[in-house]
């Protein structure tokens, strides 16, 4: 399945995957003299769960940061919805409908869970400042609509009980879930998850896996996620990119990747020389 066609396919469990949503072409990124990513290409198709895996320091997070505009690659092109994406700031990328979460949770600590989720809807608010201040007419309708969408996502992720709690008081696992809720609130076309399961216990990991699958199933959201725990990823994703030392060493379905000799070497630790 390692072709570059824009055709969709059907997954083992019978879900229909659409055409290419995003395509990374020959991305190279370096910091000073250190190459974080070397000439990597891959695509993300509409409706699929795409994983990027690899050992620590493989360049996975750098790749996610390139997609979300936090890093600017020295070489290569990013294609999104059939068009070449010009160089953009992270907030512009977000406005294109690409939402993300962070490896080290980045929430608004001073706000409640609900307010955090509402910030995810900022780009869906269009009425004027004065109308919003006076809470009149269209502004009121818009605020109500945004609130409803936010509440729906809060229900979906089962965090109703804590909706008014300041996020700084929440335990780690719930914070991760709130971050997911905020990203979802933006109704993204592409959802980027940076190690959604890092630091979680088994139960929390199972919850998070279930939510990721449900989100994809219920909203049809395309998801790209990074993880270094191979077991979780293999159950979750439709296709997997494997990175090691900034290079792509494998790309395909979980089964294909699992049997790839280069991947096995990378994970079992064969000396690089």
């Amino acid at each position, binding site marked *: 399945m390692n072709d570059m066609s824009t055709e969709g396919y059907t997954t083992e469990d019978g879900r229909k995957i659409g055409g290419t949503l995003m395509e990374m072409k020959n991305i190279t990124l370096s910091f000073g003299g250190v190459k974080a990513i070397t000439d990597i290409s891959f695509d993300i198709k509409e409706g699929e769960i795409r994983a990027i895996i690899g050992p620590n320091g493989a360049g996975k997070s750098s790749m996610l940061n390139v997609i979300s505009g936090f890093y600017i690659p020295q070489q290569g092109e990013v294609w999104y919805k059939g068009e070449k994406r010009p160089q953009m700031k992270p907030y512009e990328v977000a406005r294109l409908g690409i939402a993300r979460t962070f490896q080290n949770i980045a929430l608004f600590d*001073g706000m409640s869970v609900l307010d955090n989720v509402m*910030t*995810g809807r900022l780009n869906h608010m269009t009425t004027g400042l004065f109308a*919003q*201040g006076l809470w009149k007419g269209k502004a009121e309708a818009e605020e109500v609509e945004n609130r409803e969408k936010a509440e729906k996502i809060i229900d979906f992720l089962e965090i109703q009980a804590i909706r008014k709690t300041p996020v700084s008081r929440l335990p780690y696992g719930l914070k991760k879930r709130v971050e997911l809720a905020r990203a979802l609130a*933006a109704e993204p076309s592409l959802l980027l998850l940076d190690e959604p399961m890092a630091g979680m216990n088994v139960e929390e990991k199972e919850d998070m896996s279930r939510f990721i699958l449900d989100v994809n199933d219920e909203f049809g959201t395309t998801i790209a996620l990074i993880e270094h725990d191979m077991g979780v990823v293999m159950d979750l994703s439709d296709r997997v990119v494997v990175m090691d030392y900034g290079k792509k060493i494998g790309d395909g379905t979980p089964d294909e990747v699992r049997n790839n000799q280069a991947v096995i070497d990378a994970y079992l630790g064969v000396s690089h020389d």
Partner: protein
Amino acid sequence: MSDNLIFGAEVFLNGLMAGVLYALVALGFVLIYKASGIFNYAQGVMALFAAATLVGIMKGQVPFSHLINAIFGTDLHYFGWHLPAIAGILLTAAVMVVLAWLVQKFVFRHLVGQEPIILFMATIGLAYFLEGVSDLMWGSEIKKLDVGLPQGASFWLEENTQWLGFGNENFYGFFIDKLDMVATAIAAILVLSLVIFSQYTKQGRAMRAVADDHQAALSVGINLNFIWVMVWSLAGFVALVAGIMWGTKSGVQFSLSLIALKALPVLMLGGFTSIPGAIVGGLIIGVGEKLFEFSVGSLVGGATENWFAYVLALIFLVFRPQGLFGEKIIERV
């Protein structure tokens, strides 16, 4: 009623009014601190600059006229117009927005992610720079500012409160400056709109988000630069209001920039992050220093207003370091 009680009440009222003016300056600090974590030492100078610009624009003064005349040998001083106050205020507000943009573009955009102390140093530099620019643009002499705000004692209030003396013939009713009353009303409106803005509008929500976490703010599509320019503009606008009030009261002059120092104890009392705190803190300082001067001042040789606010703030710091309304400091162990 006894003389002391009546005069005490009058001092109390006047203290409240003075407190409102302190609160106005403190508000500007809180706005910037909340949104960017910068303690803006230049807030007082911004008030001076705003007031001087307003006077200059209304009088039709040519900015930088000394400089222009010295270089080109011309003799320009005035454009020869007199603008009404409202036009002058609008133009000055526009100037403050431009200033906000310049400050963001040339100073703070390059200092994103730096230590708070470095940002603080930058605002000290900004304060002296802006003070120089203000002098160069509009001259350094003491200017009279008159935007048509009522001034002097309110006779209406005096007449209508005389009965409160209950037959005490030394009492002629409360003496309160009309300007102070206007300032109170304006401050109330300003605070109300700021609270509504930060709680119920998209931009306000974005402002709080930026204050909390830059990366997360970017990831939900917030343009950091835009928010910062907006916040500095708001602070500039608050500085303009404070500048008008203080400028009308005591003339537009260098000492106007020193009101920033008066705002410091207000912030320590109210907390650096709370808009209502700035107001209540201002009122407490205003009332406190007037009442203290009235009751104890004469016993210690007067001039207690110079230090009272700082001592009060110091005492508060010991017992409530986060201020009255500041976010509680909880350390996790």
